[in-house]
């Protein structure tokens, strides 16, 4: 055993180094949050609870085409339609089993009318399974709750992919030359 190694062994050098590090981090600010009291805002484009969109007159946008249900990987969207007067489709029931949903956002991607959207809302625990069975009425009221004002359209358009510009590229794409060094580091 060399002298250096001997000294390192009897003085617990590597353990002391580790302890110094833990002691130092005791003095740095905490990275955790006191969750129910302090909430972290969801990032824009967060994939949370569903809402059915309403148009300007406050009517449901969905026409019952069934694309969302066909695309949904967990097959948790159920749509029941009937023929109304003047032979148009009437959406009688539009139901999402939220407990089976995987929040992939594919339903929004599939919808050709922008009639469904995922909201930023993610805290919806409850005591019964029925509370998670979203009916048409619940989904429409979600729109009023989470997409009040002008926010709606801009929000679900983020999910509406791909866009034409994705196939062509455009000015103003993110690139390295524009990276701002947020904190100066070595």
């Amino acid at each position, binding site marked *: 055993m060399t002298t250096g190694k001997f000294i390192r062994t009897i003085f617990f050098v590597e353990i002391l180094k580790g302890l110094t590090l833990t002691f130092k981090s005791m003095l740095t600010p905490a990275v955790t949050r006191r969750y129910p009291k302090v909430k972290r805002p969801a*990032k824009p484009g967060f994939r949370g609870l569903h809402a059915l969109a309403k148009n300007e007159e406050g009517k449901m946008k969905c026409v019952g085409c069934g694309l969302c249900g066909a*695309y949904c990987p967990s097959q948790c969207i159920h749509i029941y339609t009937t023929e109304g007067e003047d032979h148009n489709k009437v959406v009688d029931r539009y139901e999402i089993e939220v407990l089976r949903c995987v929040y992939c956002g594919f339903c929004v991607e599939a919808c050709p009318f922008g009639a469904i959207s995922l909201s930023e809302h993610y805290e919806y625990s409850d005591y019964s399974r029925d509370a998670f069975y979203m009916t048409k009425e619940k989904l429409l009221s979600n729109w009023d709750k989470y997409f009040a004002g002008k926010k709606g359209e801009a929000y679900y358009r983020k999910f509406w992919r791909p866009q034409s510009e994705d196939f062509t590229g455009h000015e103003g794409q993110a690139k390295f030359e524009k990276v701002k060094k947020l904190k100066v580091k070595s």
Partner: protein
Amino acid sequence: MEHIEKTFETRELTISMGPQHPATHGVLRLVLNLDGETVVRCTPYVGYLHRGVEKLGENRTYFAALPLSDRLDYISSMNNNVGYVNAVEKLFGIEAPERAKFIRTMVAEMGRISSHIIWLGTHVLDIGATTPFLYAFREREVIMDLFEMLCGARLTVSYPRVGGVRNDISQEFLDELYDFVLDFPSKMDDYETLVTENRVWKNRTVGIGVISAEEAINWGLTGGTLRGSGVNYDVRKHAPYDVYDRVEFDVPLGKNGDCYDRYLVRIGEMRQANRIIKQCIEKLPAGPVMADAPKFTLPPKDMVLKDMEHLIHQFILITKGPTVPEGEVYMGTEVPKGELGFYFVSDGTGKPYRMRVRAPSFVHASVLPRLCEGGLIADVIANIGTIDIVLGECDR
């Protein structure tokens, strides 16, 4: 005093470790036959998390089966997604544009860091060190936040798409990622200060779970578990996909094939992953992020609103799926756990006739008896940690 002599009869003791055991990383059950502290026989039982992903994949179109791959190895879902879309693209015969490939490589390496960080935290926690676990989750949180910023989900991302990626990255994302990349090596130094030279850690891992290079190959090991034995095999180097042939990185190798060497290999891999991300940011080209292949990608949504032809196209692609060439395709990608392979048999319809997943964790779980038998029961924990299995992927 009268001397009483007794002869004790000893018997093997059978205990069941798991499926609810915090150190089995999920729902793995090991039946251990013990002679005192020594493991005589070890039998892994898998299947507690079986969801039939392969069968489910056969009932969905190639597009809609993507979220299933998130749920294989749920702590590195980004890598699974990248593996899945690469396999499907190979079957379709299309190629993603440059920018999309760079973005995919970048996010896949972020996934690798986040997976290895969890592995590091839980592996050392199993062996008794609590501090690195807490530090590891601090860094992982940064990556999760970045993923949320990127695509709106933290864990099961479903971000890459067949033919490209879901959306282009934003400048804020790039800023924050670059910031993370510059900072990360110092965080790695912190972990290494705590763990690498620690004598307790070394006593628990050096010379434990030794497997020679030849044996490792025969068992079909891949990834860090194989490279710990000194075999230079990395899918990213040997069959490059995305832009791995255009970024510089080393493949860290171990020598002895024990738990400690596998630890060093994965630590090295995290540093290399960081290097790859940095290069991807610096070289990121401008341009499209979706391939121009109208038969195989969903049409642009702004056109769907305006144009009847695109609308019809949207309906057909979503309900029936694309019309794909008949044939078989295998594509392996390097995920944090090892080589993840997707094998498709196509009969020309929009859904795969057969989808097979070659899951590294499944192969690695099979080597557990070889590593554990003859060792002590305490080392079983070290061995489970070192092969880095996730049961979601093992049971599929």
